[in-house]
């Protein structure tokens, strides 16, 4: 395996880390307005309170790693998807600010406004990320200089809207399961009802996206035809999703959450296998696509970055584990900081 492929995988791991970790923060944000009681909303906020900030670091580091390993992709995508990216940044900023300010005043109106901002931002972050993924699947118009030649509306199509909604559904399900882990009593009974509904919503979206992808974007399946062993990934994905209601039924919420994490990882693996070795496929004119070779930094830089990753990642995993261990268990009344 060459360095370019290793970095393709590592960046995939960073974005998968982001999707798994910030995914439940976003899901909690989407479900936030479904409870009306202020105490319940505070419990939701405090369920993600100590960790959401660190979870977002996965996205920021992913962006930095993309810049370092595949600068052409960083440059093309962020300058090409200009308006969409700034909308994403706006909602990321608003979510952070809303979490921070929401509980700082007693006023009902103040709290309701920030709650709305928090929830709308969470929906939009997930949706925009999903739209971006959809565009990478179908390809975007590039010229021979690797520059994007469309505009904001080029990025919006029925297919990309569908991948956006699927992402929303995925994180909503993930967030609901996380909340089952973090709540107890009456609130947990409410949240548990959501899990089944969100699973159904997600499965509908997932099946639709899969069918439409098979029909309209057949190149996504090429590697599966060439290497049938890869069918193990969609198989694991379906088993993981099917396992969630089973674990919930047996009240093994930790396992339900792990299954949900596994299904997100498997979905991203499907996506990565589908686009490989492209990073940004060009459509039309596939010969202008950005690949892991023509978009990459020098072999020297990829080596240095690999050393940095080998030194840094064990630390990152150790901190993350330590923090989640410290804040494990149900959210207690005396722990309400937000």
């Amino acid at each position, binding site marked *: 395996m060459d360095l370019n492929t290793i970095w393709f995988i590592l960046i995939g791991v960073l974005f998968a880390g982001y999707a798994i970790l910030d995914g439940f923060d976003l899901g909690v944000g989407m479900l936030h307005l479904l409870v009306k009681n202020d105490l319940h909303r505070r419990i939701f906020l405090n369920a993600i309170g100590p960790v959401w900030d660190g979870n977002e670091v996965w996205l920021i580091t992913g962006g930095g790693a993309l810049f370092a390993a595949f600068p052409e992709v960083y440059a093309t995508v962020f300058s090409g998807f*200009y308006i969409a990216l700034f909308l994403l940044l706006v909602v990321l900023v608003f979510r952070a600010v809303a979490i921070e300010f929401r509980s700082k005043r007693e006023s009902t109106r103040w709290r309701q406004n920030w709650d709305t901002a928090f929830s709308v931002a969470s929906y939009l972050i997930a949706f925009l990320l999903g739209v971006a993924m959809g565009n990478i699947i179908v390809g975007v118009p590039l010229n021979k200089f690797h520059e994007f030649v469309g505009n904001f509306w080029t990025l919006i199509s029925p297919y990309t809207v569908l991948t956006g909604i699927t992402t929303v559904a995925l994180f909503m399900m993930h967030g609901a399961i996380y909340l089952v882990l973090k709540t107890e009593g009456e609130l947990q009974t409410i949240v548990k009802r959501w899990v089944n509904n969100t699973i159904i919503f997600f499965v509908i979206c997932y099946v639709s996206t899969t069918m439409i992808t098979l029909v309209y974007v057949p190149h996504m399946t090429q590697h599966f035809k060439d290497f049938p062993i890869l069918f193990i990934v969609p198989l694991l994905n379906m088993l993981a999703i099917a396992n969630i209601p089973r674990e919930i039924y047996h009240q093994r919420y930790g396992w339900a959450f792990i299954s949900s994490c596994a299904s997100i990882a498997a979905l991203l693996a499907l996506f990565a296998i589908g686009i490989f070795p492209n990073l940004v496929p060009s459509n039309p004119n596939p010969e202008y696509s950005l690949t892991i070779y023509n978009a990459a930094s020098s072999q020297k830089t990829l080596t240095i970055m690999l050393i940095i990753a080998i030194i840094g990642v064990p*630390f990152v995993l150790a901190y993350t584990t330590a923090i989640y261990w410290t804040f494990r268990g149900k959210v207690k009344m005396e722990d309400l900081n937000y």
Partner: protein
Amino acid sequence: MGEVELLSRLQFAITAAFHFIYPPMSIGLGIALIIMEGMYLKTKDKKWEDLTRFWVKIFGIIFAMGVASGIVMEFQFGTNWATYSRFVGDVFGSALAAEGIFAFFLESGFLAILLFGWNKVKPTTHFISTILVAFGAHLSAVWILVANSWQQTPAGHHIVTRQVGDTIVARAEIVDFWQVVFNPSTIDRLTHTIIGAWLTGAFLVLSISAYYILKNRHLEHSKSAIKIGLIIAVIASFLQLITGHSSAVGVSKNQPAKLAAAEGLFETQTNAPLHIFGWVDEKEQKVKYGIAIPGLLSWLVHFDASKPVTGLDKFAPEDRPPVNIVFQSFHIMIAIGMLFILMSIVGIILWATNKLWTARWFLWILVFSVLLPHIANQTGWITAEVGRQPWIVYGLLRTSDAISKTLTPGSVWFSLILFTLIYLLIFVLFLFLLDRKIKQGIVDHSTDGIYAKQKIVVEKN
């Protein structure tokens, strides 16, 4: 300058300037927190616990604002400066990625324990978390300063050309990683920025604590906090004199056009003067209404007044930075630096002679002094970044050639207006929250927390 370029530069300047309000406060406050919590663990005096908890809350607000305003920074090299990103990604991107992996995870992870872990971990674990958060904040300064210093004094790279489409495109690629990291200006600029951050944290502590003393609140706590603030301020303000001098000497060697602009030196000359203040007339190419000390610039750069200092005449007009803005920001920064030394000395003398708590005039000065480090930070960065113009990577890539090719003025107007409003909103909210925390004051924690519970057990025994 094209409209897209002008707007993009404005956007970068505004977002970077607003963002840089917060990180120096986190870095500086981190040091103060280590001292406060260290004192608590050492003395077990609950005064220190209350103080630590109060400042941890302020730290939390500042940190959150820094994160919210910082997300944009990670992505806007790509959005508006795509040509730059393609050119430098091989070198610059590594430093940015290292910042994420080594610093951001550390900071944001242990911040959770700092803010919410009081009742969940042992006191020593909490203290270690405080140290790790402060360390992480310093580490992120290291990597971002490495990246920025490479733009100022590129080293450890070579220029490689390759074919993209039907044209030949050049980019910088790493040859020697450690030369990139320790490029000629890294150490000077890193130490100068970090000590500037310590001053920012110290004067924040001094300002709020002086305010409490003037309002006759939390006297015990605030006196202790002021002592810590003064100690940091006196050490940092003298150190800053050394790093500032060293930076200027480095600039005279590596970026002589920047130093010439900062001093309004149009002609290369021996016995070059140092201006205390002045106004640069860029058309007539001279400094008006100023007071200058003859020979001092030559002496400061070479320790010898008879040696020449390079002036702007050695540079073609298209290679010169704007002069007056660099001159003014440089001189404001230096004047504030001198004020720091003066204020720290006065503070220490008043403290030593036991007059500090009654010298209301000085306490009022401390209250307003919180603005000074911020002005110095901002003007320092204006000197550094405007002084580097017209280059985005000094000597290698011009700012005008670095812009994204796909941008339209309309879309940059959109993002510029949107983000100016959002950053203003964040700033107003920050002031609002800070004001509330100050009004709430330092909370007495003698009745809650595991520390108190432990103490109660001890007392019962």
